């Protein structure tokens, strides 16, 4: 038995309207590969709904759900930043029939708040598939709880059932965390970066470019140390969205607080990073001179390539980036890519079609396809990038590339090559 896979050439020939069924999420059972638990286990690693929702400073969470939904939260709850921030109101079968669990929320909030030395400013109520099916109006319940307890109460939805839906949970949670921002006078020299739950690399050139253009205050939710700072985010003149999953939140802020937004994305192709900065400069009416950073980045890449001209990569999806874009970038830099572990979607075809022209035999696997059970760990690549690729290519040099601190722009790309140099010499 072998794990089902397709070459990039096969995928390109079939086209984006005929993605093979084994690579389409939802077409078969989901294999919860040890390589990608981040997908199926929101509490286990990375930022799932539970951890993401507590990006709001001075917030706590009350999970109102069957015990099974909250069980793995201890994996997060033991991290220093999350201690004493998760609480659980467990549903039983009677609650399922009578919905009496919803009537207990205010009492539970009061008991929790009373037990805490430091009183929270916000209580996020996390509900799961059961309440999705019961069509619980959590907005109304939170509003009532807010009136009864005097604490801000907001819902977050961990609805795995809607994962491929119009508003998936990780899109909704981004809206939820900004939902407490109230309209106030905007300041021309203030802006927000939306998209991530942790900050960009401190030395990211984006900060410098924006500051040079006269922006004095750049806010990210993860850098807000208290609730007051968080509330100041609605003073922003504009929002810069760096992850498409934050588009819905940005649109909501535009509607409610009158803050327009611009969208950029994380890229690993140096020329595209440059083009994106120039486009951003055009939209903002500023100048961005990125020549020095661009040249420095190109030098870093070329030096590494000259030292390791035949390097072959395996790239996974459990990392900070789009695996198809990163694969294409590395191929353009002159390296080889043997495997990509990620089910493609229609947007991936921007890169699949291009990759098929320069590396048609690159193989594409879906982490969640049942036959991945048979994927035999082997070394086809010299370097694995991504936590999942590291799992599959255990003898390759490993770069998980999934740190909380977010790589972006030239500095992100330079950091990747610094790590490559670190493992390859």
């Amino acid at each position, binding site marked *: 038995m072998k794990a089902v896979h397709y070459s990039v050439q096969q995928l390109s020939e079939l086209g984006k309207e005929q993605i093979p069924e084994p690579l389409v999420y939802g077409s078969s059972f*989901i294999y919860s590969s040890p390589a990608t638990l981040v997908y*199926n286990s929101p509490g286990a*690693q990375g930022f799932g709904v539970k951890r993401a929702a507590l990006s709001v400073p001075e917030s706590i969470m009350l999970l109102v759900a*069957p015990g*099974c939904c909250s069980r793995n939260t*201890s994996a997060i709850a033991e991290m220093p930043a999350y201690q004493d921030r998760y609480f659980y109101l*467990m549903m039983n079968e009677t609650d399922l029939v009578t919905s009496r669990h919803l009537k207990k929320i205010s009492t539970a909030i009061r008991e929790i708040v009373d037990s805490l030395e430091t009183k929270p400013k916000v209580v996020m109520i996390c509900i799961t*598939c059961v309440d999705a099916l019961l069509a619980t109006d959590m907005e109304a319940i939170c509003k009532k709880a807010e009136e009864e307890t005097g604490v801000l109460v907001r819902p977050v939805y961990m609805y795995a059932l*809607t994962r491929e839906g119009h508003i998936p949970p990780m899109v909704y949670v981004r809206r939820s965390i900004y939902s407490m921002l109230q309209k106030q006078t905007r300041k021309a020299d203030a802006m927000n970066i939306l998209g991530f739950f942790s900050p960009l690399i401190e030395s990211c050139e984006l900060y410098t470019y924006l500051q040079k253009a006269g922006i004095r205050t750049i806010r990210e939710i993860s850098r807000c140390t208290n609730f007051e700072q968080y509330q100041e985010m609605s003073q922003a003149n504009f929002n810069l969205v760096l992850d498409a999953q934050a588009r819905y939140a940005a649109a909501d802020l535009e509607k409610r607080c009158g803050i327009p937004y611009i969208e950029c994305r994380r890229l690993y192709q140096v020329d595209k990073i440059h083009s994106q900065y120039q486009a951003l400069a055009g939209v903002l009416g500023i100048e961005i001179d990125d020549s020095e950073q661009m040249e420095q980045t190109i030098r870093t890449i070329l030096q590494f390539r000259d030292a390791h001209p035949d390097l072959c990569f395996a790239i996974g999806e459990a990392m900070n980036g789009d695996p198809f874009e990163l694969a294409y970038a590395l191929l353009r830099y002159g390296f080889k890519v043997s495997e990509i572990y990620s089910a493609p979607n229609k947007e991936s075809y921007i890169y699949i079609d291009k990759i098929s022209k320069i590396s048609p035999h690159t193989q594409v696997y879906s982490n969640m396809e*049942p036959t991945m059970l048979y994927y035999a760990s082997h070394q086809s690549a010299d370097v694995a990038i991504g936590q999942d690729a590291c799992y599959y290519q255990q003898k390759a040099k490993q770069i998980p590339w999934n740190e909380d601190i977010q790589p972006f722009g030239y500095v992100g790309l330079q950091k990747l090559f610094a790590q490559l140099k670190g493992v390859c010499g």
Partner: protein
Amino acid sequence: MKGLRKYLTPFAPDQSGATSVFYDMGGIIVICDAGGCTGNICGFDEPRWTSQKSAIFSAGLRDMDAIFGQDERLLKKLQYVSEQIKANFIALIGTPVPATIGTDLLGIERLAQKKSSIPVLSVSTTGMKNYDAGIQEAYLALFRKLAGKTANEDRVGVIGCVPLELGHLSWAGFIEKELKKTHKKVSIYGMGASFEEVCTAGNAQKNIVVSPSGIQSAKYLQKTFGTPYEVAFPGAERLVKAGPWQKPLIVHQQVLANSLRERIPTATVGSWFTMDKTYKKPEDVHFKEEDDFEQFVTSHDFDCIIADEAMRKIVRNYKGKWISLPHFAVSGKRDVL
């Protein structure tokens, strides 16, 4: 407050318990969920997941499946996987989603069985009960469907031994080592026993039940094949050294705690999980809520508590000795496994 947890994360649920029984028997295990429950089982409740492969899949239910009850879609996916994966049996495991929409898992089991050449089982877990309820149902489903008798063997069966009932995977080894002193073969159902050993469970000379979750199936095997059973945790003495305590409290699953008490007769046994009244002393206590545990500890003068460290947070002011006795279903601590 009833149902509120301020210190302990919820315990391992029934669906995790059921899965742990089937884990290493070479079956296809389908968790009928949207993905999150499977993630919890594989990523948290099943410590063998990263070291020992098992064909566990999420049914990947979506809102439309739930609304329209598209059982045919589930069966189609099952057929695809059955063609791709060679397996001894198929087990369907319930979660809150089928429980909420009233899915007839037994009905799906029957439909799937008509299309399958290998046995199909189902366990109607709901995700709202503790792990031990799931273990009990899974053992019953397994033995009712598969167990037979072909010969008499010098063999002892062990029921109720899965990682969730223990504090460390090595504890299963202690059980095996003890039983091998008196029997040629030891079949630990759920941790090492093969599918064939399950199918010939009636061959065993006797069964040892190491947790309350195994009692019902031991009774079934006794009734069906005449196999006698004992309730004990062999090798328990290796887990905790005896001390000078006058009044200790032992908190774990009932059978393990009782076996420890044999060496510390003054101990009181407590458990968050099923306590069989046959093996329960009048002073023993069952905890439902955090408040129960706190009040019990503060109202008794225990000089020592032998329990999972996770519970310590509930009684922060307790001044006596605390001896760590990990329970994976409570703390889920992988570093102790």
